[in-house]
């Protein structure tokens, strides 16, 4: 009897240790899959409520009246689950069905490289600063495949526009990451945050890189004014025109997940990471980890809220104007950011 309870307790403890180990916790619980779903719910609700308040109307109202309609997306999800999924006759069926699923999961992939505190990381590598943007570049290719497989002229034009947008934001993004790598003298996210403690946030050290990266963040997650590939009044819904049912939610949820990942990255590199201001947390390791996670989530939340707010202010650019903006302004800004970083390192400030 003693043996049975002892082994049962051992098994439960083993499972518990497995769950709170970083290799499982980060990709699945926080900031991974479960947090992503909760954040998706909250972010879309926030966007709809904020937009409604600016536009003098109510937004989500009836579903859970007491809390202001927070679970509206759950109701929408229920409805989409029961909707008929139509596959067009001339579409490439296997790709048509598989591509949104891969899109939804691959946009989530970079989260494995995000550290929550200086000791709690899933991947023990000193290249995580480069790894996150690199893994994030997989997703837009799937959008192009989605647009091609639908066999619809509007989807095709939408995926072409997505391809053009990739060319206009990826290079400034990588060059501004390079600028920060030069400033922090390392390619590891943990070192990046540690370099920011005691001096200042990355935003203050190199504001040019921050602006260039924020512009790239807006472009990649299709926030207004860079909503070009899903421009409703010109090309219906762009690459996702032929989708209905739950796949439509996959397709439209993917930009929000990209926004979340990039916001986490932005708050680690430019907003001081898991330290509340510039002083490091000094409590026991477990409480450290929990507080760091909360602080990181709050900072990412602020970045996401700012990005979502752009919807109420701006219209939509044209694709050639986005390309011009990306190559004239953002590219030049990111090159200047690299020069600024080199100057700061050369002067011995960092």
């Amino acid at each position, binding site marked *: 009897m003693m043996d049975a309870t002892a082994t049962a307790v051992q098994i439960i403890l083993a499972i518990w240790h497995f769950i709170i180990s970083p290799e499982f916790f980060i990709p699945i619980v926080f900031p991974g899959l479960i947090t992503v779903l909760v954040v998706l719910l909250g972010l879309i609700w926030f966007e709809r409520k904020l*937009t409604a308040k*600016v*536009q*003098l*109307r109510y937004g989500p109202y009836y579903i859970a009246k007491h809390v202001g309609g927070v679970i509206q997306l759950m109701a929408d999800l229920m409805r989409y689950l029961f909707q008929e999924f139509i596959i067009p006759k001339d579409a490439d069926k296997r790709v048509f069905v598989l591509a949104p699923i891969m899109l939804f999961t691959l946009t989530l992939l970079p989260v494995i490289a995000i550290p929550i505190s200086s000791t709690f990381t899933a991947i023990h590598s000193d290249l995580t600063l480069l790894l996150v943007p690199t893994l994030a570049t997989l997703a837009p290719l799937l959008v192009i495949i989605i647009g091609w497989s639908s066999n619809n*002229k*509007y989807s095709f*034009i939408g995926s072409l526009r997505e391809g053009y947008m990739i060319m206009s934001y990826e290079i400034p993004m990588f060059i501004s990451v390079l600028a920060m790598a030069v400033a922090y003298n390392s390619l590891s996210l943990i070192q990046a945050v540690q370099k920011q403690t005691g001096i200042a946030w990355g935003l203050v050290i190199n504001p040019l890189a921050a602006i260039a990266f924020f512009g790239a963040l807006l472009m990649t997650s299709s926030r*207004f*004014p860079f*909503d070009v590939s899903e*421009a*409703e*009044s*010109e090309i*219906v819904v762009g690459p996702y025109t032929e989708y209905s049912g739950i796949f439509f939610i996959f397709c439209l949820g993917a930009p929000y997940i990209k926004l979340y990942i990039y916001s986490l990255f932005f708050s680690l590199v430019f907003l001081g990471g898991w330290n509340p201001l510039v002083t490091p947390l000094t409590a026991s390791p477990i409480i450290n980890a929990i507080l760091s996670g909360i602080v990181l989530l709050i900072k990412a939340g602020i970045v996401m809220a700012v990005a979502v707010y752009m*919807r*109420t*202010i*701006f*219209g*939509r*650019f*044209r*694709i*050639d*104007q986005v390309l011009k903006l990306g190559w004239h302004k953002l590219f030049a800004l990111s090159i200047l950011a690299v020069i600024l970083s080199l100057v700061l390192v050369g002067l011995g400030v960092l």
Partner: protein
Amino acid sequence: MSEPETVELLIGPQHPGSGHMRLVAEVDGDIIIKFEPNIGYVHRAVEKIAETKTYLQVIPLVERPALADASNHNLGYILALEKLLDVEIPPRAQYLRMLLCEINRIHSHLYGLGIFGNMIGSSTMFEWAFQDREPLLELSQQLTGARLTYTYIVPGGVRRNLPADFKNNILKVFSYLEKRFVDYNKLFVNNPVTIARLEGVGVISKTDAARIGIVGPNLRGSGVPYDVRKVEPYCAYNEIDFDLITEEAGDCYARLLVRREEMKQSIRIVRQILDKMPDGPYFADKYMKMVNPKMKELVDQSGVLRFPALFTALKPAKGTAISRVEASRGELFYYIVSDGSAQPYRLRMITPSFKNVAGYKAALIGQRLADVPAVYGSLDYFPPEADR
């Protein structure tokens, strides 16, 4: 054997950016090389049905094509009819007609701005413009009894007198609207994305605009100073002081600016109308004498007209008559052929949107595909009005 290099896109009726019509665009890369609007999806045969209805029954028929602008259409028809009827309109009725027409002009321009904002992607402009129509609908309800299509202007005058506290209400609405115009400027008109999207897009030169026949703010946005209220003043427009707004550029942004300024001029006109409103009857004596005496008491008490029995079978003189008014979207032209019976022999209605269809081709050849909604919003094209 090479594949064709251009793509033919049907921006058809099931499209968020097309309205009730089809635009066929042939696109080479991103540049439009051929463009053809295909209209007629909401043709309701107004001209044919008018030949089977009495003259008074035609009024709701001609109002319906342009919903936001109904009283201007109503006015054009009645002005043509009254040339065949030989009746004198009292001055108070003229001013009341102008009042409702200018309220409709602001309403229609707000509607146009809302659609324009939606086409460019600014959903906030869409919501704000559409919600700011609500005070104007309330005012129309107080004046005429209906929110949207009024049948207010009848042969001989108007149907209702001015309500008691109408002047205060309207001045409150105007001060609210003037604050909102400042907000619109900050949000939409001076927004850098809007300027980038609209400036230099869809340019129609001055001589082109006059020759292809586009009308209204589109014509004035290309620099032609033509407004029927100045060229051939009807009702009492020659006693009211207002500016003719023109812009020289001829692009989408110029047309937006013309509409914005015209709303302010309409507010100015209504203020003068309320100050200068003459006293007197609001319906011609010639027909008032024919109203049943018992009905006459009701009319005097309530300020709401009851028609004389003559109106059920009004027979104007034999002949033809034309009239033109400045509706919100442009110049509206009526031509009535009467053979002396109670039904029109031929009613011809040329609506401003029907003339503005020609503007699509002139503005869009050589532009990019993404400019189609921008030009659509700037021409303020309304398919039911064009198709009648």
